[in-house]
């Protein structure tokens, strides 16, 4: 084998997978995983660990995989990560651990994400479960939101002996892992469900259908229900729209609505009650991972799908792997293109979208080249469905109902990065609720920091 290249990963054929919701990437088997693990140089001063937001001991677990000690590898990862089967699948490794791998300088980086995924999948299939702490320390902590930040924080606190209850607004726990990321990237029953079960096995209670700020407030949790500290991991779930004419027409959706119908409500299945509207020709506006997820979902529901993005391919914020998968499956990319109006028929249904050509100007504050309109370049795309995927912001419900909890001008909760401490005593926060929409692994890192902060606070009390 070529040591400069990754052991290839098995995937479903693009033509076949474009018509189903089964997982695209099939993962490594034992032989492939061990062969890939053998490519690791076991660096003394491992740069990959610095690239991992939760600092998994990557060389150690990879050596264990190489030697076939999968259970040990699983324990090594568990020391740092609560959701390895998820992170191995959805982390942008190319800009994190794998981006720093020494192998990547001359050849291809070691497939750290796929190896992590292999270990997590192997552990689940072989019934390896985390050990519940022997006794609790009697302190009660409430965690708000059961996404990656909340699950990680709750898991860490439970391991330290705290009695933890997670409050979740939706009817199923998991946050974006359940309603946002589609089945074909992250299987719900097979992967997400068992990872959440593992957190419960640590003694964490999960109460669904509780909206903090409406069903109960943070102050009530602390004053009436005996919680001594609270971690807010409520995410950034409020969708943005463009504000262009025609945006309220029938057939215009936020990506959140489209994905929630499909992923959480399983509208893609005939035996579930929730409907989903799929047109024949769909435009997805935006270029992030959520846009790719919405596009590939619409494609699987039978539509011709266009990604409409105002910058060029180099600036697409989505993971390279996702863009590649979308293209393989037949998603069409209309780049340097920006919608200006949605056209409707007499019944207010979408019948087209007027778009304007863009070109790239000088770099803006974020360092990305700013798109500039090309005058007189408008043309009409013939579409019947438009999915807006322009990003999300935090829901102000919690901050507006909690006395003394301060937010910044983007409605993000102000919290210390190292320990999650907010402006209100005993209340900690992390993940997208603090940073605005980011990644699963960064939310986990924030959940971990919050657990540390809460432990310091309560053990010092």
């Amino acid at each position, binding site marked *: 084998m070529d040591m400069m290249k990754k052991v290839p990963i098995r995937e479903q054929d693009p033509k076949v997978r474009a018509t189903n919701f089964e997982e695209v990437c099939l993962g490594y088997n034992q032989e492939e995983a061990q062969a890939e693990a053998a490519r690791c140089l076991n660096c003394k001063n491992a740069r990959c660990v610095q690239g991992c937001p939760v600092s998994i001991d990557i060389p150690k677990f990879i050596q264990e995989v190489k030697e076939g000690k999968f259970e040990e590898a699983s324990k090594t990862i568990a020391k740092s990560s609560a959701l390895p089967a998820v992170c191995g699948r959805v982390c942008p490794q190319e800009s994190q651990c794998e981006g720093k791998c020494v192998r990547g300088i001359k050849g291809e980086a070691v497939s750290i994400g796929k190896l992590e995924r292999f270990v997590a999948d192997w552990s689940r299939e072989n019934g390896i479960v985390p050990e519940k702490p022997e006794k609790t320390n009697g302190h009660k902590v409430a965690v708000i939101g059961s996404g990656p930040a909340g699950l990680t924080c709750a898991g860490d606190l439970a391991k330290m002996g705290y009695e933890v209850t997670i409050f979740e607004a939706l009817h199923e726990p998991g946050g974006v892992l359940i309603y946002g990321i589609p089945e074909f990237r992250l299987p719900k029953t097979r992967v997400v469900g068992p990872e959440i079960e593992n957190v419960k096995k640590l003694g964490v209670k999960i109460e669904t259908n509780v909206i903090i700020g*409406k069903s109960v407030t943070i102050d009530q949790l602390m004053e009436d229900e005996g919680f001594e500290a609270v971690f807010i991991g409520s995410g950034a779930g409020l969708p943005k729209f463009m504000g262009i004419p025609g945006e*309220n027409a029938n057939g215009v959706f936020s990506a959140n609505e489209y994905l929630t119908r499909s992923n959480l409500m399983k509208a893609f299945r005939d035996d579930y009650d929730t409907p989903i509207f799929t047109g024949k020709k769909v435009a997805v506006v935006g270029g992030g991972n959520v846009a790719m997820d919405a596009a590939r979902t619409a494609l699987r529901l039978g539509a011709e799908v266009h990604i409409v993005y105002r910058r060029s391919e180099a600036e697409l914020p989505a993971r390279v792997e996702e863009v590649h998968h979308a293209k393989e499956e037949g998603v069409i990319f209309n780049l340097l293109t920006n919608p200006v109006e949605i056209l409707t028929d007499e019944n207010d249904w979408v019948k087209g979208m007027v778009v304007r050509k863009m070109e790239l100007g000088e770099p803006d504050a974020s360092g990305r080249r700013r798109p500039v309109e090309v005058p007189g370049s408008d043309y009409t795309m013939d579409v019947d469905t438009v999915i807006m995927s322009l990003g*999300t912001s935090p829901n102000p419900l919690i901050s507006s109902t909690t006395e003394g909890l301060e937010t910044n001008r983007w409605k993000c909760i102000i919290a210390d990065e190292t320990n999650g401490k907010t402006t209100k005593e005993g209340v900690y926060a992390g993940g997208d609720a603090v940073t605005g929409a980011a990644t699963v692994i960064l939310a986990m890192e924030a959940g971990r920091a919050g657990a540390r902060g809460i432990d310091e606070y309560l053990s010092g009390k």
Partner: protein
Amino acid sequence: MYKIVKAECLADKIYLMDVEAPRIAKLCQPGEFLIVKMDQVGERIPLTICDYDREKGLVTIVFQIVGASTARMAELKEGDYFQDVVGPLGQPSEFVKEDIEEVKKRRYLFVAGGVGSAPVYPQVKWMKEHGIDVDVIEGSKTKDLLILEDELRAVAGNLYVTTDDGSYGRSGMVTKVIQDLVEQEGKHYDVCVAIGPMIMMKFVCKLTKELGIPTIVSLNPIMVDGTGMCGACRVSVGGEVKFACVDGPEFDGHLVDFDQAMKRQQMYKTEEGRAMLRLQEGKTHHGGCGHCGGDE
């Protein structure tokens, strides 16, 4: 799981249920709603909270069979469970948050159309509990479809019942009664609260605008999560986009774009029709008649 402690058929296709949901019962206010999901495969259905018992931890919902999901829900009996009930959601009615002395100075008219009597009831009850007598118009297509008449009569100052076909009470639409009260019977109102089918609210607003009565309506657009994360329920109010689930469901009726809201309500009509036919006729329905689009 949320236990149904009472299930009652109020009229043809209209059902009332008392459900155990202590967290909701403890904090809910008039004007707010909840979402129920009956089982694993069910959809999330928004329903206004019609009554509550804080002591017993009960909330009351009233719903009408309009499609496959509500038809399935109507089969639930006392002692059965909803898998999920979440709430309270939305903003409470404006008067709940206002200075009670200010509220007492105003003359209120409540207009309830059809199953809209259910969300009107807790508001009128709240008024009664605060010592305020209000006028209530309750409209129904026919006598048989009239619901909660006794309950409303017990809390209203004056209750005016009307049926479209004249089979009971006054005769004609609720708009005719509003016009009669104001123009013939010399009544004066400072605020009108109208809840019912979208088309009724539209025409009430058209009339009250002419009569110069500020009017609040409670909108019932399509919803999914009900917590502000998807925008399925977005409506245009005074030219601005609002999410009914978090900004509403109550809005200034004179600013609502009803035509757009009604068209958005139709978005899933075909899918709903198909689901209903699947439920009623099982695999026998193949859409061969060409009238409904059928199942391809």
